[in-house]
Every structure is written in C-alpha cells, then in structure tokens.
C-alpha cells in the first residue's frame, strides 16, 4: 500500500513524517512522534481519552486518519504545562483530586482547557456538558467538575 509524507505542527514543533493511509492520528502522535499524552481507550470515538486540539478545536484523534491532518496545528496535553510548570487547570486537577487512575486525564484536560477559553464563568451543568465526550471509568466526575470550576474561579480572580 501507498505511503504519504505529511507535515504537522505539534505544540509548536514542526514535524515531517511518513504514514500509511490507515494510520490513525492518535497512533501517529504516540508511536511516530512520541507524544504519548493522548491515550488510546475505547477506539470507537466514545471515551475521549485521545482528545487533542486540531486547529484550535477538540477532536478524538482515534477517529481521524493521520494523513487527513497534513498541515494541521495540533495541541496535546504535553503542551499545557509551560516549561515544566503546570497550568492552572492542571494544578487544580491535582488540588481537587481530579484524577484517580489518570487514564482519562489528558483528554479531560484538553476538553476542559478548550471549554474554559470561551466560558469564563461556567455553571456546573455547563461544565458537565463540556466533558460529555470524556469518560472517567473511575467515575470521579465530581472532583473533575470541582477542578474545572476552581480553575474558572482562579482565572477569573487573575483577570
């Protein structure tokens, strides 16, 4: 089968790689480029563990072929911390025990980070709607919602 040369930018770093058409975006990120933050969970587009931002919007990277993302600007969970210093959202997940096993956390963080960019003072219901596409099999949703709410509060105080 054919192979294709593509280029992507991940967290600001330019990469060129060669992929088979059937290589999923999440597989290219993890196995070709070493961005193992995006996890492979259900592989059916339900669980959201593989959530990344492509050109500013969250998508599930198991439901996109890598070759389709040629030229895209991709952001993964590795890009949230600034030179090793956790973002406010990441700190609040830690503070509020917003993670247990941690498997859903990269996707949760990407969905929550994207949501908070456009929603400065969300209700808990709005937060729950925002993470509807991210399943936590530890069922630790209360603390995740707490963490996102606390982040919104903290960012609001800083504004």
């Amino acid at each position, binding site marked *: 089968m054919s192979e294709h040369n593509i280029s992507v930018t991940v967290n600001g770093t330019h990469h060129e790689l060669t992929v088979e058409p*059937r290589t999923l975006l999440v597989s290219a990120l993890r196995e070709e480029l070493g961005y193992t933050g995006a996890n492979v969970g259900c592989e059916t587009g339900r669980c959201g563990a593989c959530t990344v931002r492509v050109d500013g919007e969250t998508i599930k990277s198991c439901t996109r072929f890598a070759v389709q993302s040629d030229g895209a600007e991709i952001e993964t969970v590795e890009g949230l911390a600034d030179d090793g210093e956790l973002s406010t959202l990441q700190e609040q997940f830690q503070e509020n025990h917003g993670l247990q096993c941690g498997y859903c956390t990269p996707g949760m963080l990407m969905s929550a980070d994207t949501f908070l960019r456009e929603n400065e003072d969300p209700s808990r219901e709005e937060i729950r709607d925002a993470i509807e596409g991210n399943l936590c099999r530890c069922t630790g949703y209360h603390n995740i919602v707490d963490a996102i709410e606390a982040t919104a509060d903290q960012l609001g105080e800083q504004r």
Partner: protein
Amino acid sequence: MYTNDFDYYRADSVGEAVELLGDHDGAELVAGAHGLLPRMKTGDESPPALVDIGQLNGLDAIESSDGGSISVGALATHAEIADSEIVREHAAALADAASELGDPPVRNGGTIGGNLAHGDPRSDPPAALLALEGSLEVRGSDGERTIDAAELFEGPFETAVADDEIVTAVRIPTDDDAVSGYRKRRDPLSGYAMVGVGVWLRTDDETIEAARVAVTGATTTPARLSGVEDELEGSAVSEETITAAAAEAGTALDADAFVSDVQASAEYREHLLTIDTERALYDVLDVGQ
C-alpha cells in the same frame, strides 16, 4: 486498532473529487470520517480507496438566501450548525439535532454532508431534514442534481446519493410562520438516538395548518410519521390534538419498521415513540405542560 489497507487520494476541488471517485472502483468520500472510520474499524465497510474532501475550501458556508431558503455547506460541522444563528432562526430542528449529536469533540469532527449521505439510521440530523423537507445538492459525473429528503433515506446506511456523487450543500426551505424542533432520547451506551423526533408545524396560533413529523433511531430507516401529520393538520392547537396525534405515531409504519436491540425491544421503542412525539409537539407549541 487499524482498519484494512486502502489507497488515499486528496481532492483539491469538487470536480477532482468526482473524477477520483469515478477512477477508483468502490472508493468512498471522507471528510470528518466520523461515519465511515468507525465502520471501517469494525469491518462493516472496507473501501479500497478513500477520497479526502475534508480540506476543500468554501464548502462549509451557512447562508440565508432571498428565495426563502437557507444553504448549509456539506463540510459544515455539527458544532458550526449548532452555533449558527441562521440555522437556529430558520431551521431550529436542525440546530437542535446538531447540538444533541454526540458530544463536543464529535460535533467538531463530523460534517453534515457526510452524516446525511452516510444514512446512519441512529443519527439525529435525518429526522430534522425530513421534518424540514430539506434537500441535498449533489454533484456527480452526470452533473448536478437535487435529492429531496423524502427520497434520500433508502435503508440502513443506504441513501440515494450515488457512489460517484458528492454532496455539496443542504438546502432548507424557510417559512416565517412555522416552528420546528427535534427531541432526542439518547441511547446511554452509544450516544445515538434511541428515539429521535423532528417536528415542523405551521400554525395561525389557533389551527395547525401544516405538519411534518419524522423519526430517527427508533426505526431501521428514518421516516415521516404520516399518521401523526394527518391528525395534526386542520386541528386546533390544543393538548387534545397533541395527545390524539401522538397516539398515531406508529400507525403508518410497518410492524417490522422498529429497531430491536439490547437497549430496547421494538415494542418498547414504539411505545417510546408515542411519548417522545407528544413531548416534541409540546416543545414547539405554546400549550399546556
């Protein structure tokens, strides 16, 4: 999880996409990939080639035209439709369906043209398109044509969009005197519609002049509910009318039209359809409850 191997071609124009489809037997279009890719993983579909139209420019515009219709570009995502003021104002049922579909990342990924051409009977937009009497604008090797919603859905994952055709836009007629909406009962496992009901009604506030009601999810193929429509048309806007109309939800459908699966039997889905039809009518009419 990998799909089977396939050849990949990227189209730089609608014309090139049509050519590529013609050149490669069995090739399928891909844009958001949210309909096709999951079915390629399970082996339900295994096209030898994909033609990628996801990066085509200008196919995602949502516009209102003077001629009494709105046009939604085939590459508009469900998120863009859900957020569109034009769609909300003139085709509320489609805005409802788009905002109820999947979850935020799925709405960012999936596109309306692919959704409707794919013909997944569990998906939300088909009921809205049927109730709104929308149509698809398609282009193929024989030129352009229009496919009305009533002719579109031929069976599960079977639509009237031909193998060498590409959907370019969805057109919805508008009517300032009409109201519309879509109500979904979500399958808790898949997130698809266990039952979804789209309604479109034109009233003079006292009488229902015209009615269009459609179902998705509950039936093997999205369909209009003519029994409900007949009961509504010409009747007073009242709770009694809604109750009587909802009771007709299953009457014009064949006995084997309903889906039966691990979540709900066919009999239960038919029961739910009556309830959800009633609720969908209350959602858009200014009476009771």
